[in-house]
């Protein structure tokens, strides 16, 4: 049953086996695993419940309805726009559906550096396979490629930089192009149309508009959560909410989970590592109309530079990022350009003839999530050290790819108005100043790592099972649990980890076989 908190009057008191705070990649996956095996499940999400008919595809509606802080959140210094969702289905409502399995090198790092022995293909493959089957994850076929995707592929072939079609989570996609403001046709496999209905139909109760503020902890054990049901439009409280449960699972995303923990648990590891895979956006003017509005935004990814390389002297030699083909709606695009006045208007008029990619920088230096003096959640992030070099290398190689594909000029949308038309421009005009904070619009949408798993309690919030080191029966099963940057979209990793944690919880609770 889906219960919209915005429609309720009065207080709510639930009792269940497990309460899950968050309904996205982690919460939805874990919730359906347990609910379909007989667990009495209650799920809570601070965001609203939206269906296909609610998705107008207008950016102003999508940003206001289900983007965190109405799409206006950023790091404290305003250098990185933070893109995350608050809705039933979490970030999968607005994600692009890119569904990469966790790279082997990352699993190896987590085993070796964080003691997570189970982070291995032999443990995770069965979970990934099941999730891929349920969500219809498949390699994007030619029917999903728009012209921007094809141009980037052509540029990769011409430059020798490797790229591949992406695995994408959609079934019977009609390639209408827009997915960032919710799929209006129920073709993208978001959690709100996949796992959540299944939880609902086996007796689970899913509350939207349910803001959790407290974790009930008695004698070192989590016993439930508390909060309020809110009016969706005004966010005013409509009634108190209390859920008593044998187990509490946090799956509110890297920001939501960290905020809840910072308010309730004294653990210095919370919020100490905050990864976002910084996105820098490059635009290429082809001097003619480019179809970048149909198909899917990212049918093709440039992955040949994913692994960072160092020379014999240990100096950075390139790589450490991937590129995703990209499109944006006019308002967001307008925000991304650094020009003002007539120059800005001139560039806006070229919107329809632009190709674009965005970076996924595999950063080594994380930021932080914290509560400020007023108790408000904030984030800080600084592109440092080798990560700055990765960003510059990305800007250069993105430019090369587009020029090789026939672009007349490539825009680095920084405040210096950097435009490149040839290799000489690339080498002389693109440098570190372009990636200084607030020298150009940048963003982060792969938000992870704020309550990480690991075997060392001084360096991780939860152990290898997902259970908190310092609070029994309290689990974390979302992006917050992921130890470090993944280097690709994290959604499938989060789902796989959540399903593994769910299976372990089910087994340890003595319910295996049910």
């Amino acid at each position: 049953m889906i219960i919209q908190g915005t429609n309720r009057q009065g207080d709510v008191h639930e009792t269940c086996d497990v309460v899950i705070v968050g309904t996205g990649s982690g919460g939805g996956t874990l919730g359906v695993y347990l609910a379909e095996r007989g667990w009495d499940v209650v799920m809570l999400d601070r965001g609203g419940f939206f269906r296909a008919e609610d998705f107008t595809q207008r950016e102003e509606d999508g940003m206001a309805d289900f983007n965190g802080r109405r799409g206006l959140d950023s790091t404290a210094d305003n250098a990185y726009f933070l893109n995350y969702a608050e809705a039933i289905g979490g970030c999968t409502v607005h994600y692009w559906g890119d569904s990469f399995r966790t790279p082997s090198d990352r699993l190896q790092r987590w085993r070796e550096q964080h003691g997570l022995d189970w982070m291995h293909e032999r443990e995770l493959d069965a979970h990934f396979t099941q999730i891929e089957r349920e969500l219809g994850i498949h390699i994007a076929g030619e029917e999903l490629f728009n012209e921007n995707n094809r141009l980037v592929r052509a540029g990769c072939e011409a430059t020798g930089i490797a790229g591949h079609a992406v695995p994408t989570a959609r079934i019977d996609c009609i390639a209408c192009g827009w997915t960032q403001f919710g799929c209006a046709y129920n073709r993208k496999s978001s959690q709100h149309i996949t796992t959540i209905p299944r939880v609902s139909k086996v007796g689970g109760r899913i509350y939207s508009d349910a803001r959790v503020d407290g974790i009930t902890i008695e004698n070192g054990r989590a016993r439930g959560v508390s909060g309020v049901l809110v009016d969706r439009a005004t966010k005013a409280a409509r009634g108190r909410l209390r859920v008593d449960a044998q187990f509490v699972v946090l799956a509110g995303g890297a920001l939501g989970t960290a905020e809840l923990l910072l308010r309730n648990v004294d653990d210095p590891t919370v919020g100490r590592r905050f990864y976002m895979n910084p996105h820098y956006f490059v635009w290429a003017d082809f001097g003619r109309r480019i179809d970048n509005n149909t198909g899917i935004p990212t049918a093709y990814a440039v992955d040949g530079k994913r692994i960072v390389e160092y020379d014999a002297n240990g100096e950075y030699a390139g790589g450490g990022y991937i590129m995703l083909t990209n499109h944006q709606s006019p308002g967001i695009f307008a925000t991304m350009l650094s020009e003002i006045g007539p120059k800005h208007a001139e560039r806006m008029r070229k919107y329809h003839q632009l190709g674009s990619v965005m970076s996924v920088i595999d950063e080594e230096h994380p930021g932080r999530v914290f509560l400020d003096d007023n108790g408000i959640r904030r984030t800080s992030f600084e592109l440092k050290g080798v990560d700055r070099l990765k960003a510059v290398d990305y800007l250069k190689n993105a430019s090369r790819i587009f020029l090789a594909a026939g672009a007349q000029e490539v825009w680095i949308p920084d405040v210096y108005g950097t435009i490149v038309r040839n290799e000489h421009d690339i080498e002389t005009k693109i440098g570190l100043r372009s990636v200084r904070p607030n020298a150009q619009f940048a963003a982060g949408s792969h938000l992870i790592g704020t309550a990480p798993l690991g075997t060392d309690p001084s360096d991780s919030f939860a152990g290898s099972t997902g259970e908190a080191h310092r609070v029994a029966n309290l689990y974390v099963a979302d992006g917050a649990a992921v130890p470090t940057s993944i280097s690709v979209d994290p959604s499938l990793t989060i789902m796989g980890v959540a399903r593994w944690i769910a299976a372990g919880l089910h087994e340890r609770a003595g319910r295996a076989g049910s």
Partner: protein
Amino acid sequence: MNPLSSHPGMNRRSFLRTTAGGTAAIAVASLLPAGCSRDYPAAGTDGYTLLALTPKEYAVMRATAEALLADVPVEPALVAQRVDTELAAVGEPVRTDMKTVLRIMQHATPLGGHLRAYTALEPADRLRYLEGWARSRFGLRRAAFQALKGFTHFFAYYDDRTRPITGFIGPWPELLDLPVKSVDYGEIA
């Protein structure tokens, strides 16, 4: 966007003071407001009831839209009103941060070599003033510029009158009339 404040234990004012250029900005911002009401010749609200901004902050926002959106078919007052509405809805920390940006922008014009407050500048001078902030070597000034520019442009270009400038035809479901797959959610209350 929340361009100010920095890390645990640091409030907005102390952040400004630790940032080169911010020291001057906060000094100017704290000294000038009392005597500069004459620099708000258009500090009215265009008949609109403000929800989050003060009339002076509204005037700064409208003056920014006027400078940034010359020849763009959207009324500066409408953009300022949209920003006000949005700031009322989004709450903290975005609201207070943006209001701080507006106040600093208004009173830090001496940093750009101007003796008059921001709203009293001609639009072309405002544009040059903003360009100075955009390319400043001080991070705080670039942050304030990006916040102000971002709000102005976003709330100007999500508009059926401005979208056509871009050649964007939109994926509007009501026009596409494509089939929606049904989903059985079980009971919905």
